[in-house]
C-alpha cells in the first residue's frame, strides 16, 4: 500500500499516512466508546468538580486512533473530551454554547473553569469544537467517498480513473462554489502545502544536527545580524519574498562544505523523506488522501455482500473482510457459486490483455455478461469502445445475483394482518417461541425478497400458509380457553371434562400419527359441546373409524327432570 509523509504546524515530527487505508479506517471508525467515556467523565466531573484525568487520557487516545492527523495534532485535539462534553450538555439541555458560557462565567469549580475556558476559545476564534469537527468530517469523508466511488444503480462499478478524477474535481468544485457564494475568505480555506523536509517551517528543529553544523559555519555572519522583530499581528502574506530573501542575504556567499561535512549532512538529509505534505487542517488531510488515492490509482470499491467500501487497485465486487459467518465476503461468494479459490484470482492479479492483441472478440449474443457496458463519459474520458466486448475470464461468467423487488403494499398488509392475529393469541394458541420463530421467518423472507434471494411468489405462499396457521391457532386458543374454565364451572362439571379430555386425547394421538406437524388438541368443556362443534357427518378429514364418529347420537340427548306434584298420601304414606 502506498504511503505518504506529512507534518503539521508546531510539530517537529514527520508522520506516515497509509493512503486510502487510513481514510477508509476513519470513515468506518466507531466513536461510540469514545462518546461513552466522555459522558462518564463529564458526569463524574459534575460530582467532583474536576475531570478525571485517567478517563480523559483514555478517551483522548481512542480519538487519536481514528486518524493519523488527529494523533499528529495532539495539541489541537487535546481538548476533544471537553468538546464532547460541551456538545453533550448543549445538545441534551438544548442550549447554545453562548448560553453555556454565560452559565459558567462565574466558575466555581475547576470543571466549570475548563468548560468556560474552552467556550471562550470558540468565541475568540482560537479553537473550534473538535469533537463536532471530527463527526462532521467523518460525514464529509463518507459522502465524498460515496459520491466518487459508489456505483450507480443498474450500472457497472467498473469506471475509469478519468471518471473518478472528474467526480472528485466536481465534488471539490461544488464546495468551492458554495464557499464563494457565501463569501468565505478563500485564503482561509483548508489547503495542503508540499515541500521537502528541509523547507518545512520547523525544518531547523527537524534537521537539528545539520542545522547546528550550518549555524557554526555561518555564525560569523549571523552574529552580526539584527533581529527582525516583526509584530505577529500584521499580515505578511504579500511580503513573503522579501522576508525570505532578507534571510537569504546572510547565506548568499556560502560555499559548499568540505567533503566530510557534506557526507555527514547528506546522511542526515537523505534519511528524511523527499516529499512532505503539510495539511493545515483535518479537512485538508482528508482531501489530500482522496487526491493521493486518485493519483496512485487506489480505489474504494463497494462490496456487493456487506455494502462496505474497501480499498483495491481495481474495481472488485467482494471484499476480504471477515464477516459474521467467519468467512470473508469473497470466500462466501466463492463458496456460494462453488468457485475454487485457485480459479478465481484477484482482479489485480489477472494479466491484462495487451491492446494490440486480438484478444478482444465478439461474444455470442446469448452469452450472459457479468459486467455491463462501462458508463458513457463525454469526450476524453471514454476509454472503451461500446461495440467491442472484452473476453471475460471464465470465473466471471457467473450469473449475477438476482435483483430484488420491493414488496407490494398488499403483501405488506397481509403480513401485518397475520402478525396481528397471531400476536393477539400469543400465549393462548401459540407460545412465545413459536411466534418468535414465525416472525423471524417472515422478516427474513421479506428481506430476501428485497435483496432478490427470494421471489414474491414464495412470500405469498408463506403468507397463505400463515393464514392457515392463524385458523389453527384460533381454534386452539378457543379450545384452550374452554379447557381451563373458571373456578365455578370446573367444580360443576368435573366428570364431563374428564370424558372430553379422554376423547380429545385419542383424537390427538391419531392425528399426530398421520401428520408430522404439531397440533394443539381439541378440548371441550362438555361432551355435548364437542358433539355440536364437530358432528360426525362433517368428519373434518379424520379417519372414518375414529372415536369421534363412534359416539352414539342418543347418548348426547339430555333427559329433562320430571317435576310431578305428589299427594300427601304418596309422599308420607297413608298412615301419616
Amino acid at each position, binding site marked *: 500500500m502506498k504511503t505518504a509523509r506529512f507534518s503539521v504546524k508546531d510539530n517537529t515530527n514527520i508522520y506516515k499516512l497509509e493512503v486510502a487505508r487510513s481514510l477508509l479506517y476513519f470513515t468506518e471508525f466507531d466513536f461510540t466508546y469514545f462518546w461513552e467515556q466522555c459522558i462518564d467523565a463529564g458526569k463524574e466531573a*459534575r460530582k467532583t*468538580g474536576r475531570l478525571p484525568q485517567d478517563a480523559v487520557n483514555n478517551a483522548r487516545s481512542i480519538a487519536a486512533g481514528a486518524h493519523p492527523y488527529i494523533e499528529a495534532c495532539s495539541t489541537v485535539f487535546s481538548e476533544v473530551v471537553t468538546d464532547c462534553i460541551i456538545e453533550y*450538555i448543549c445538545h441534551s439541555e438544548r442550549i447554545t454554547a453562548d448560553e*453555556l458560557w*454565560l*452559565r*459558567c*462565567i*462565574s*466558575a*466555581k*469549580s475547576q*470543571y*466549570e*473553569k475548563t*468548560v*468556560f*475556558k474552552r467556550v*471562550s*476559545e470558540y*468565541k*475568540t*476564534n*482560537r479553537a473550534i469544537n473538535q469533537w463536532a469537527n471530527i463527526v462532521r468530517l467523518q460525514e464529509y469523508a463518507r459522502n465524498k467517498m460515496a459520491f466518487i466511488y459508489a456505483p450507480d444503480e443498474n450500472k457497472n462499478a467498473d469506471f475509469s480513473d478519468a471518471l473518478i478524477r472528474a467526480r472528485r474535481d466536481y465534488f471539490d468544485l461544488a464546495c468551492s462554489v458554495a464557499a464563494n457564494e457565501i463569501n468565505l475568505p478563500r485564503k482561509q480555506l483548508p489547503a495542503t502545502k508540499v515541500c521537502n523536509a528541509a523547507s518545512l517551517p520547523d525544518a531547523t528543529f527537524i534537521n537539528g544536527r545539520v542545522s547546528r553544523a550550518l549555524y557554526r559555519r555561518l555564525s560569523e555572519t549571523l552574529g552580526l545580524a539584527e533581529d527582525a522583530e516583526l*509584530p*505577529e*499581528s500584521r499580515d505578511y502574506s504579500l511580503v513573503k519574498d522579501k522576508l525570505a530573501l532578507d534571510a537569504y542575504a546572510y547565506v548568499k556567499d556560502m560555499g559548499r562544505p568540505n567533503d566530510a561535512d557534506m557526507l555527514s549532512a547528506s546522511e542526515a538529509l537523505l534519511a528524511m523523506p523527499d516529499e512532505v505534505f503539510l495539511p493545515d487542517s483535518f479537512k485538508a488531510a482528508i482531501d489530500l488522501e482522496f487526491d493521493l488515492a486518485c493519483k496512485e490509482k487506489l480505489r474504494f470499491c463497494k462490496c456487493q455482500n456487506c455494502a462496505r467500501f474497501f480499498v483495491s487497485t481495481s474495481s472488485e465486487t467482494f471484499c476480504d473482510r471477515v464477516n459474521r459467518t467467519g468467512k470473508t465476503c469473497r470466500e462466501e461468494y466463492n463458496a456460494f457459486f462453488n468457485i475454487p479459490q485457485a480459479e478465481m484470482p484477484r482482479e489485480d492479479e489477472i494479466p491484462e490483455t495487451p491492446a494490440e492483441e486480438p484478444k478482444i472478440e465478439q461474444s455470442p449474443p446469448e452469452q450472459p455478461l457479468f459486467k455491463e457496458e462501462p458508463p458513457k463519459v463525454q469526450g476524453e474520458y471514454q476509454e472503451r469502445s461500446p461495440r467491442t466486448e472484452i473476453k471475460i475470464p471464465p470465473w466471471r461468467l457467473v450469473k449475477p445475483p438476482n435483483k430484488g423487488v420491493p414488496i407490494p403494499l398488499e403483501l405488506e398488509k397481509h403480513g401485518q394482518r397475520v402478525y396481528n392475529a397471531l400476536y393477539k393469541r400469543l400465549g393462548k394458541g401459540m407460545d412465545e417461541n413459536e411466534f418468535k420463530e414465525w416472525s423471524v421467518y417472515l422478516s427474513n423472507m421479506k428481506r430476501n425478497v428485497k435483496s432478490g434471494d427470494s421471489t414474491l411468489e414464495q412470500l405469498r405462499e408463506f403468507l397463505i400458509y400463515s393464514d392457515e396457521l392463524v385458523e389453527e391457532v384460533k381454534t386452539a386458543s378457543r379450545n384452550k380457553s374452554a379447557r381451563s374454565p373458571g373456578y365455578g364451572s370446573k367444580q360443576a362439571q368435573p366428570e364431563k371434562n374428564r370424558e372430553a379430555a379422554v376423547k380429545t386425547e385419542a383424537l390427538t394421538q391419531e392425528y399426530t400419527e398421520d401428520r408430522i406437524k404439531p397440533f394443539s388438541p381439541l378440548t371441550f368443556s362438555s361432551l355435548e359441546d364437542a358433539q355440536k362443534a364437530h358432528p360426525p357427518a362433517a368428519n373434518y378429514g379424520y379417519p372414518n373409524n375414529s372415536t369421534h364418529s363412534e359416539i352414539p347420537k342418543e347418548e348426547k340427548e339430555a333427559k329433562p327432570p320430571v317435576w310431578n306434584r305428589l299427594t300427601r298420601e304418596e309422599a308420607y304414606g297413608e298412615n301419616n
Partner: protein
Amino acid sequence: MNFINESNAINGLADTIVKGGVCLYNSVKYVYSLAEKDFYNIDVKDVFKVILNNVTDSDSLAAFGLRIDGGTCREMQSEEYNRVLPLIVYSLAVRIPTLKNVRVDDRNMTDDQIYRLYTTVIQKGAENYHDIIPETFLEAKYMVRKGKAMPPFTAEWFKSYICNHVPALSDISNKNIFLLGAVDMLFAMFYSCFEGELRSKLTEYISGAGITEATV
C-alpha cells in the same frame, strides 16, 4: 451591627475591597492587551461581561487568550503605572462609608466598624499618590450621613494620572485611545457591580457563608 466574628468580618471585607482593586487594575491591562492583536477576534462586550461577573477575580479573563505581560502591555510595565493599583484601592476605600446604607435585620454598620474597615484597607497598601483622587473618606461619610447621593465612580483621576505620569500611555496611538475610551465605561460599570458584591459579602458575614452549587 453584630458580626459572628467582627475582626474576621472586617478583614474579609477589606480583602474583598483589595481584591476588587486588583481585579480592576488587571482588567484595565487585559482591555489594553486586547487592542494589541485580538481587536477583531475578541468581543469587548464579552470581556466586560466576564469582568463584571467576577469583580474580585480577573483570572477568568485569561480564557480569552489575553496576556498582560511585557509582550502586550509593555507600556504598563513601569513603576509609575504600578502606582495605579494602590490608587484604585484607595478610590474604593474612600467610598466605604456607603456600606452604612446596607441594612440587615434593620441594623447597619456602626461608624466605628466603618472606620476600622477603612484603616484596614489603607494598611493593606491603599494610597493616594500626589493626591490624585479628589474624594476623601470624611466627605463620603458626611454625604452618607446627610443622605446625599455619592458622585458616580469615574475614571477621570485615572486618565489624569496617566496623562501626567505615564507618558507611554498618553501618546496618541490606536491602543491608547482605545484604552481611554474603554476605562470610562469600565470604571463606572465596575463600581456598580462591586458595590453589589460588597453588600452580599457583608450580608454573608452576618448570616454565615452561603453554599455554592455547580451550574454545569
